[in-house]
Every structure is written in structure tokens, then in C-alpha cells.
């Protein structure tokens, strides 16, 4: 042990002690998403002395992040979130190792990224990515500490812990595109993800230290506006776990082609001959993005519309933040379309390039 002073106040706890601190030092934890949830998770785990942290985020800091993502300051705007988060937490605790992945978590890089880690923390902002994390984690038998937020409310749970239930056991995936949530920015109370991220960090420390009772098979639902918390119990569903496992194994064995487009790759694709660009947002959503080869088909109408499309044509999908276009891409791929791509972070990631 290199520095007992820094951790003395937690080593004093009989539940932790020097043995526990050593467990933290040896732990390898992957944080997917360095936004509202990821910032407090990283800050707390770094401070506690978790020895190896991985940070996955392909995004850059934006001024609209600053009211809740407290690892970043105004001067960081435009810089990589993952790199900036690394720099900030290393200033807080230079005794840990931090590994950065400046990419979004996708089907192409998922297995490569998770390979060295014992615990995954889901701090993402897209339902499709949450299912992806689940499937990879179920296949690799890695526990996932989950949280998600909506306006003033949040959810926390731990999946795949000692053979416990998974994300799909709690929320089975619906095949229909009609149920994909709209991804228009809905706003969030800045302090909310910090509360939920602190809950996630607590669960991670309990798992590493093997103390207390881990939130497995239980969903914590938190309502900040009315200060209400509930614990909802849920059971393991073998079929849902099997589905995740099968998806994970197919992913591992599939040919890796890049289906998630960066803003640059998206604009380049739009100019290619023979491509169909589909805007899956509702008709009234802005900013407008029209090209000669583009059409507007709101997500709820895509199932019907896709029956008329040639499955061998290349299709590029986009929406506001990438949530709906990713669901649409998965749907079209499962329906037999050969070349489907989507703008990973939506038209919002293009806003600087359209002006």
C-alpha cells in the first residue's frame, strides 16, 4: 500500500480496513458514458482509490453539460469528455490508472473494450446501448451497475450479479418500432444525475469490497421532486437472459463493419450515389436537414414504409440524438436489410457543421 493517509478515513471502517483498500486498488472498473452519471461515478471511484478505471465516451464537452457534469469547466468545451475526465480525476488522485476510449460504445468495439474489466457501469443515455451493454455483459458474465434518469426521476439497479437478473429481465425489449421513446431533449435537474451516480458508485464499492447487500433483483426508483424512493423487486427470467447471451455471442462472431457514423462520415455518405437518407424524426422537429436523396419517415411509420424498400440498397438513418435511428437500424437489419447505417449522436452532433 503506497498511501495510507489518503484513505485513512475509510480504512478505519472495520468493513473496509487495509484488506478492503487493497481490493479497491486491484479492481478494474469500466465506466461507459462520461456525462451526467459518469462524472460523479468517476469522481467517487477515483477518490476511493479504485486502482484501474476505463472511460468510454466519444463526445466532446458542451456548455449545456456544465450544469450537471461537474468534472468539466468552461475552458474544456470542445475537448474530449473521456480525456478531460481522465485529466480531472488524475489531479484528484494521481495514484490510480485511467484508460481512455475516445469512442462511443458500439457493436463494433464492445468486446474489445470490456475485455479487461470486472465491473461495467452503465452511464449511457440511449436505450439501444443499454441493451448492447446487457448482451455483452451477460455473455461475458460481468456485473453491470445501472442507472438512468428522466427529468426529476431516476432508476438504479445491479444486473448479472452472481447469476442474478439482467436488464432484459426487468425491461424485455419490444420488437415494434412504435414503442421507442422520442429522443428530443427533455431537460434534467442538474443535481439529479449526481445523486444517481453517487448511488451507482456506492454499489460498485460494495461489490468490490464484498460488503452489505447489493441492489441485485431490485430496482430503486427515485423521485427528486417529491423525495420519494421505492424498491421494486424483480426476478430472473431465464428466457430474457438467454436472449442476451445469444445476442452477445452473435455479436462476438459477426463481421465487424462500421454502422455508426460520425458527423463527417454521415455527410460523406449522404453525398454518395444510390443512398437513401431517412429522417425518422416527427415532421415538425428541427433543425431541418434535406438532401435530394432524403425522405422524412417518422419512426412509427417506418415498419410499414420499409416493406416497399429494396433490401439491397444502402440506407442512412438519422434522428435528433441517435436514439430512434439506432432502434430503426436494428429493426431494418433484423428484417434483412444489407447496408444500414445511422448518425450515431443524431442531428444535434451536426449543429456546428450546418451553420
Amino acid at each position, binding site marked *: 500500500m503506497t498511501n495510507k493517509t489518503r484513505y485513512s478515513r475509510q480504512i478505519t471502517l472495520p468493513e473496509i480496513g487495509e484488506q478492503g483498500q487493497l481490493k479497491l486498488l486491484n479492481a478494474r472498473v469500466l465506466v461507459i458514458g462520461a456525462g451526467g452519471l459518469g462524472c460523479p461515478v468517476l469522481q467517487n471511484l477515483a477518490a476511493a482509490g479504485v486502482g484501474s478505471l476505463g472511460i468510454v465516451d466519444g463526445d466532446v464537452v458542451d456548455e449545456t453539460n456544465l450544469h450537471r457534469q461537474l468534472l468539466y469547466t468552461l475552458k474544456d468545451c470542445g475537448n474530449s469528455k473521456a480525456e478531460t475526465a481522465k485529466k480531472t480525476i488524475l489531479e484528484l488522485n494521481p495514484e490510480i490508472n485511467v484508460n481512455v476510449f475516445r469512442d462511443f460504445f458500439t457493436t463494433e468495439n464492445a468486446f474489445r473494450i470490456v475485455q479487461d474489466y470486472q465491473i461495467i457501469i452503465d452511464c*449511457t*443515455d440511449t*436505450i439501444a446501448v443499454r441493451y448492447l451493454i446487457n448482451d455483452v455483459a451477460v455473455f461475458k458474465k460481468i456485473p453491470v451497475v445501472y442507472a438512468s434518469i*428522466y427529468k426529476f*426521476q431516476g432508476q438504479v439497479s445491479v444486473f448479472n450479479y452472481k447469476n442474478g437478473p439482467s436488464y432484459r429481465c426487468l425491461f424485455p425489449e*419490444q420488437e415494434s418500432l412504435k*414503442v421507442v*421513446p422520442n429522443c428530443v431533449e427533455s431537460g434534467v435537474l442538474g443535481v439529479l444525475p449526481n445523486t444517481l451516480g453517487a448511488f451507482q458508485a456506492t454499489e460498485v464499492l460494495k461489490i468490490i469490497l464484498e460488503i452489505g447487500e447489493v441492489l441485485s433483483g431490485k430496482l430503486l426508483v427515485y423521485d427528486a421532486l417529491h423525495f420519494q424512493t421505492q424498491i421494486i*423487486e424483480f426476478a430472473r427470467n431465464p428466457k430474457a437472459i438467454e436472449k442476451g447471451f445469444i445476442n452477445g455471442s452473435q455479436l462476438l462472431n459477426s463481421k465487424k463493419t462500421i454502422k455508426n457514423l460520425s458527423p463527417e462520415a454521415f455527410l460523406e455518405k449522404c453525398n454518395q450515389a444510390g443512398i437513401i437518407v431517412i429522417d425518422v424524426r416527427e415532421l415538425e422537429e428541427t433543425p431541418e436537414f434535406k438532401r435530394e436523396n432524403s425522405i422524412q419517415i417518422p419512426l412509427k411509420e417506418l415498419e410499414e414504409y420499409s416493406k416497399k424498400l429494396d433490401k439491397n440498397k444502402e440506407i442512412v438513418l438519422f434522428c435528433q440524438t441517435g436514439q430512434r435511428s439506432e432502434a430503426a437500424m436494428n429493426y431494418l437489419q433484423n428484417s434483412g436489410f444489407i447496408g444500414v447505417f445511422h448518425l450515431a449522436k443524431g442531428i444535434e452532433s451536426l449543429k456546428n457543421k450546418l451553420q
Partner: protein
Amino acid sequence: MKIALKYFGLLADITNKKEEFFLLEESTIAVSLLKSKVENTYQELKNTNYAIAVNQAMASLDYIVKDQDVVAFLPPFAGG
């Protein structure tokens, strides 16, 4: 029978309420039937993905809801 319904996240935005009481002539009701009754009242719920918990435990569609039960409608949240 009288049951309490609680709506979370987007579902509370759709129903425009956090909770309400349902008075039903039946003495028990399966979750599946209750779900379609509620979706008939709030049509937009049909286009959302959510789980249903009865008395703080997730319930399958064939679970039987009884008088005084508390039924929670819980969607997955996306944000992070």
C-alpha cells in the same frame, strides 16, 4: 375493488398525473386486462414500453390484482 395506480417518467407525462385510484366492479383483475383498460383511457400508452409492478414487485401479465393493491407503471428511462 379499489386499486391505486402510479405512473413514472414519461407515463406520468402521458396520463398527466402521478397517481390515481381505479374503482372496478370486479373483485380481482389480471394485469393484462388492467393494462388494456388503462391503455383505453390513455391511448398513447399503447405506444410506450413499460413494466408493471404490483405491491413493489414486478408482475407478469397473468398476475391477479386484488382490492387495495398498488400498481406501478414503470418505463425504462434512457437518460444519463
